[in-house]
């Protein structure tokens, strides 16, 4: 209360000051003083100490701004509060500042320091909002400050701040275009950002600042395609539109061959033939030439990046946002092979049930599409039926679409529908309908007579507008074959008595004049009547009367000479100069005089030349040279800032520009791995003894030969195969269009999407957990079994060669250790882990083929166990260590396989035919007595999304020989098993490969800074931390690195601190980063941190690495 009374006093005070000043001019003074008074209280409130008063004042000021009232004189009072602690007040002050800073530049500078402080705030929201307001203040002096702020924000930890930076770029650009080059640098940097939050905003900035720098997109193209589905809706629209343009410059026209085919089967085009042939002749020829040239060169193969774009945008057709749907639709229209464009029709038809504004825009675009691709909307014909409640503009657009869709088969339905429309009360719509009937009649020869008859019936309609419109349309139709329809012309001539609409009268008169020979008796009479009413006619009618008179004079001068003279005389004194001119012109032409003799000879030719029938064509024809969905397309005129849609290139630019440096990091990592191997040896050699080297040499030569042969064959195969697969996919696509169900199925197979792996990973997570529990309880017994089985096999093998047997024995001894000496179990993590992982392979494959084998095994196990326990003294856990870099798993046991045994390992080499696949190296050993032939795989059963690249068939494997082959499996970033049948010429074996989570990634090389930055982006839910105590043998850096890299295919990241080891990798399918940090403390305490977008992968990896480090 006290404040309000003080405030009243102040009010009184100000008025007493104000009155004498403005008293001189009461008229303006009255207004000003009240304004002045009110603002004065506001100033007072803003200066007070109470936030509530300030808030109230700001609310009133903002309300003034909203209403468009000027509040600029309050600037000094408001700007003082920019540093106000109250967030509500602050927000409103910002609103005010942004509105008036441009007008009060000097005063606005007072606020800058506050924002500069805000930019350094630890809270990301405050940093962002400071940048937002700072960049919104349109004051040229602060351009350098803004530039600096943007640059800094572009490398901020928080993606939200980086997004704000992207928003600020176009603001600065519009303020000072000179900054373009620097801004492009920032854009380039932000384009490389991997967060979905930033992607949309930075592409927006790109579009506003440097849409011509298409080269900046190359490296980010695939990333943008892959991120697209997770970007917010508005960003999606901008990105899709940009990528459409990009694709037009980088890929080849997918319809290049089809346009050739179309040319051959021209019959299909009859409908549009009439109006398109002439215009498009040149274009078609060009196309033909081009296509012919192309066809000679080679069959069209779609660039995989082109396919990627189409595939990744398709699900967005289901978006709730009409703009997104439209963006995808236009992308498909401009970029997709003809056979695939159809998918957009359903989505666009769905938009027709939205708000009328949305309908309006969509119908415009559909109208353009229906001209080029009529077929795709034909099934939805009824969706374009008109409701009496539709607004007129919608009705007319629907009519346009219906007309475009009309063909021989559906014309009767459409005409029946039109019949209903003619009865509508909306006369503009009726007129449009009659025009539409006219267009159908000209385009479809079969119905021309029906339409004409219908229109003639309309001539007796009570509504004059209907009649008039019909006359105009009939006139156009009659021009096509006048000789047949003289009775209609007669009928129309009679109408001149009744019809008053000028356009209709003019049309009738023109018709009679043009075809006066068909109605020789009536024509002069009509002229007589018209001469009588000439002075009262509208101008267009008068002009046609003159034309009629001239034509009759030329054909039938005997009867009409005087009438013509009379009309010409009337026209000579008409008020309208056009009519006077026309009369003078006609008189000179037709009436022979001495002066104009030369021309009058040609008068007949001039007036009665054969005129081509008018072409009734859609106003939407050829509008598709504008990018659909754009404002320019809607207006059919280039809007400011519109980027032309480029024509397809003749030959595709180098596709390798889009390659991101994948090879480099593979090299790096493999080099690192090698280093690590070298490191391993000395470490393990201490405890290893003589057996170590032989074993390691074995495994190395194995892996080397495997990879060589594998990559060699793959390399030669890939060139031919990639082309093939391209073709196959195209043809598949075609079929798929015809049958939707097929498409769905195919997609299931094809799709490699995050979402899917996410959901599946959930179940998997549970499965995994279950497994872990089981493991804990059964670990001992089961691991026993495992080891036993292995040892059994090795023993039997030992028959073959003695030296090997020796080595094996030692190995066996090592393996037998855990059951007999559980105390020492910790020291043998390698073996332990292996057995655990093997479990994974066995568990999910309870197929009948496997179970009996287990029984078989266990029978012989007993004896083996006995033997093993004897040799326990020779233990050396590291015997297996070198080979553990490439752990091998059993795929097919010798006994099950009837002499054929198969082992596989994850070779950790990039799988060259498909970077998204994990390379699995298989070693086939034929220990039977006969040759095994035609080793190949069949009947692959996969979880959705997963894919497999078969290994090349091994034609023959002689007895006692060993062969290796490499296959690729895309596990879709999940640890689900790939099940398939391994076939020989005689038998089939059900086998399954399940990857440990650590094999689902590939190493990436990161610098320390990059690592920190990426880690900063993967906080919160994406981070998993676990405390652990390191195994006694694993307390130095080498050991940790070795164990982690064994457990997971990661590469080491250099690190300044010696207490920390960092590792980085990416998941093979989705390329999500996996960052691992092991920080060591005193006495073996350590902390393991994993940052990964894919939480399931993260949790599983934590468990695996934990196991590796603690045992």
């Amino acid at each position, binding site marked *: 209360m006290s404040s309000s009374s003080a405030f009243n006093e102040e009010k009184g005070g100000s008025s007493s000051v104000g009155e004498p000043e403005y008293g001189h001019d009461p008229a303006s003074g009255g207004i000003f003083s009240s304004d002045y008074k009110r603002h004065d209280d506001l100033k007072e409130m803003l200066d007070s100490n109470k936030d509530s008063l300030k808030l109230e004042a700001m609310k009133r000021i903002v309300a003034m701004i909203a209403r468009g009232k000027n509040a600029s004189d309050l600037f000094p009072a408001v700007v003082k509060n920019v540093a106000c602690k109250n967030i509500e007040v602050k927000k409103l002050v910002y609103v005010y500042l942004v509105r008036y800073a441009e007008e009060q530049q000097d005063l606005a500078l007072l606020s800058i320091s506050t924002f500069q402080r805000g930019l350094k705030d630890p809270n990301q929201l405050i940093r962002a909002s400071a940048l937002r307001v700072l960049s919104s203040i349109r004051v040229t002096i602060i351009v350098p400050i803004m530039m600096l702020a943007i640059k800094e924000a572009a490398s901020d930890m928080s993606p939200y701040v980086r997004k704000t930076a992207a928003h600020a770029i176009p603001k600065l650009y519009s303020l000072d275009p000179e900054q373009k080059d620097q801004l492009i640098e920032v854009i380039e940097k932000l384009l490389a950002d991997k967060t979905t939050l930033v992607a949309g905003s930075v592409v927006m900035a790109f579009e506003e600042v440097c849409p011509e720098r298409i080269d900046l997109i190359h490296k980010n193209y695939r990333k943008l395609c892959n991120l697209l589905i997770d970007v917010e809706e*508005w960003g999606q629209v901008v990105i899709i539109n940009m990528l459409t343009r990009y694709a037009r410059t980088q890929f080849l026209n997918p319809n290049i061959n089809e346009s050739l085919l179309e040319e051959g089967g021209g019959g299909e085009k009859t409908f549009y033939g009439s109006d398109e042939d002439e215009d498009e002749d040149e274009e078609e020829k060009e196309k033909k030439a081009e296509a012919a040239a192309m066809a000679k060169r080679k069959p069209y193969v779609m660039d995989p990046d082109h396919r990627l774009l189409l595939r990744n945008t398709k699900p967005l057709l289901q978006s709730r946002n009409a703009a997104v749907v439209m963006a995808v639709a236009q992308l498909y229209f401009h970029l997709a092979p003809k056979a695939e464009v159809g998918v957009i029709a359903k989505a666009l038809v769905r938009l027709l049930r939205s708000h009328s504004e*949305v309908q309006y825009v969509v119908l415009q675009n559909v109208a353009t599409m229906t001209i080029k691709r009529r077929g795709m909307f034909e099934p939805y014909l009824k969706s374009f039926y008109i409701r009496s409640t539709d607004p007129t503009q919608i009705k007319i657009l629907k009519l346009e679409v219906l007309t475009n869709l009309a063909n021989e088969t559906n014309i009767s339905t459409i005409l029946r529908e039109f019949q209903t429309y003619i009865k509508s009360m909306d006369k503009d719509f009726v007129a449009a309908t009659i025009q539409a009937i006219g267009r159908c009649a000209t385009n479809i020869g079969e119905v021309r007579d029906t339409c004409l008859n219908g229109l003639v019936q309309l001539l007796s309609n009570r509504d004059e507008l209907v009649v008039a419109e019909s006359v105009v349309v009939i006139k156009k139709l009659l021009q096509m074959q006048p000789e047949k329809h003289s009775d209609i012309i007669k009928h129309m001539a009679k109408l001149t008595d009744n019809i008053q609409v000028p356009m209709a009268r003019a049309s009738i008169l023109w018709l009679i004049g043009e075809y006066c020979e068909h109605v020789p008796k009536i024509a002069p009479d009509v002229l007589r009547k018209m001469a009588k009413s000439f002075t009262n006619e509208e101008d267009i009618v008068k002009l046609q009367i003159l034309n009629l008179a001239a034509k009759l004079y030329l054909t039938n001068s005997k009867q009409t000479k005087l009438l013509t003279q009379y009309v010409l005389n009337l026209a000579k004194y008409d008020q309208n100069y056009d009519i006077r001119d026309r009369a003078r012109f006609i008189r000179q032409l037709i009436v022979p005089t001495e002066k104009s003799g030369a021309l009058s000879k040609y008068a007949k030719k001039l007036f009665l030349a054969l005129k081509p029938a008018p072409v009734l064509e859609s106003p939407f024809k050829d509008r598709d040279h504008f990018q659909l969905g754009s404002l320019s397309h809607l207006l059919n005129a280039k809007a400011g*800032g519109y980027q032309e849609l480029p024509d397809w290139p003749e030959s595709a630019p180098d596709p390798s520009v889009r390659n991101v440096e994948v090879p480099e990091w593979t090299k790096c990592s493999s080099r690192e791995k090698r280093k690590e191997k070298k490191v391993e040896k000395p470490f393990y050699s201490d405890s290893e003894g003589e057996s170590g080297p032989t074993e390691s040499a074995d495994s190395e030569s194995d892996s080397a030969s495997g990879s060589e042969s594998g990559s060699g064959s793959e390399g030669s195969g890939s060139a031919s195969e990639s082309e093939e697969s391209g073709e196959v996919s195209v043809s598949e696509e075609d079929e798929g269009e015809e049958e939707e169900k097929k498409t769905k199925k195919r997609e299931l197979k094809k799709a490699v999407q995050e979402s899917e792996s996410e959901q599946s990973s959930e179940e998997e997570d549970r499965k995994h957990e279950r497994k872990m529990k089981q493991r804990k309880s059964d670990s001992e017994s089961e691991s026993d079994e495992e080891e036993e089985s292995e040892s059994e096999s090795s023993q039997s093998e030992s028959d073959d060669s003695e030296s090997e047997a020796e080595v094996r024995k030692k190995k066996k001894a090592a393996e037998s250790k855990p059951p007999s000496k559980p105390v020492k179990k910790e020291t043998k993590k390698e073996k332990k882990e292996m057995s655990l992982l093997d479990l994974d392979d066995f568990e999910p494959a309870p197929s009948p083929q496997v179970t009996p084998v287990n029984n078989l095994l266990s029978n012989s196990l007993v004896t083996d166990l006995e033997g093993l326990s004897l040799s326990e003294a020779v233990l050396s856990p590291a015997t297996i260590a070198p080979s553990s870099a490439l752990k091998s798993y059993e795929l097919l046991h010798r006994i099950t396989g009837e002499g054929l045994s198969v082992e596989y390992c994850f070779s950790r080499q990039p799988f060259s035919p498909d970077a998204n696949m994990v390379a699995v190296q298989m070693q086939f050993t034929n220990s039977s007595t006969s040759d095994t032939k035609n080793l190949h795989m069949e009947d692959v059963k996969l979880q959705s999304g997963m894919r497999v690249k078969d290994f090349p068939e091994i034609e023959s494997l002689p007895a006692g020989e060993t062969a290796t082959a490499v296959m690729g499996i895309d596990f879709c970033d999940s640890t689900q098993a790939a099940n398939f049948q391994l076939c020989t010429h005689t038998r089939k074996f059900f086998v399954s490969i399940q990857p440990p989570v650590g094999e689902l990634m590939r190493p990436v090389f990161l610098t320390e800074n990059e690592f920190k930055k990426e880690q900063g982006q993967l906080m919160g839910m994406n981070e998993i931390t676990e405390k652990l105590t390191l195994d006694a043998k694993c307390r130095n850096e080498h050991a940790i690195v070795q164990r982690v890299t064994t457990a997971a295919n990661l590469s080491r990241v250099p690190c300044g601190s010696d207490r920390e080891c960092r590792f980085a990798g990416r998941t093979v399918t989705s390329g999500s980063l996996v960052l691992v940090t092991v920080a060591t403390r005193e006495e073996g305490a350590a902390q393991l941190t994993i940052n990964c977008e894919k939480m399931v992968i993260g949790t599983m990896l934590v468990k695996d690495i934990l196991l590796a480090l603690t045992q």
Partner: protein
Amino acid sequence: MINSLFLISHSGDIFLEKHWKSVISRSVCDYFLEAKEKAGDPENVAPVLQTPHHYLISIYRGKLFFLSVTQTEVPPLFVIEFLHRVADTFQDYFGDCSEVLIKENTVTVYELLEEMLDNGFPLATESNVLKEMIRPPTILRSVVNTLTGTTVFAEIQGVIEACVKLTGMPDLTLSFMNPRLLDDVSFHPCVRFKRWESEHVLSFIPPDGNFRLMSYHVSSQNLVAIPVYVKQNISFLETGSCGRLDITIGPKQTMGKTVESLMVTIPMPKSVLSVNLTATQGTYTFDLTTKVVLWDVGKLNPQKLPNLRGSISIQTGSPKPEENPSINIDMKIQQLAISGLKVSRLDMYGEKYKPFKGVKYVTKAGKFQVRT
């Protein structure tokens, strides 16, 4: 992108303006007002207008025009969709999107607009992001079916509106008894597309509050059962200035559920002067200016079918209207989704508590028009 936004009342009063870039004088609206004058009916104003220096893109919602001004190329649907989102947000915040409410809440409106766009590019348009409020853990879900049908063409459009009030990050899976029924669907961005494609279940982590989870379409191939039938007889006498009207409505395939809020509107030809009708149930009104007969029937009683009959008088001298008026029917059926779509179950993962779940089915007539 969007430079400025003007809110214009039905009568042409500009009552709110907001600029995201340099200020554009409100005189730019004159072009729009001129077009509006010309169009007569506000529905007929072209959504996109070109002026010498600007492009005006507008929508008409709740008797208000939302007029945005842009200077450069921008996808028109982008702006239109955004403007509708603005209107939706107002509706969400104030319960309705009307001039009075917007004027009352100018400051909130202004703050909302400030948040929704930055430099003309949408920033935050999600209701839950804008609200940033935490709610108690309850969940109520309703399936609303809308039926559209004419004697010529019938189709079902439906939406699933969700109201989610769950803490944490619940991961929900909603499955249907008969998902094959759905012909065409569109989703809220939280729904995982791939999961739908592969399993036909809706898997999503919901935002808080009310939102439209999905809208769907059941095509005319799956026969649409129209729940009511209409027997009508409207005739105008050739001579004389009167006509007769007789309408009876009866239920048809309502699965034992009652049809509620039955409402019949008949836009009469302009030449109709007055009507003299009697309704066996409900009340009817005749609006003299718009010439619309509105018959509020209420509940449909299958034993005693509602009937409206009587005479129509036409201006003397004016000819017999050529087209009989079409009859528009509005109704609601509780606890029935005419499409036959049924929710089978809703599961929650990721959180430990037990949510309250509920489903409500409603059928509404969309644009049920009977051509006579």
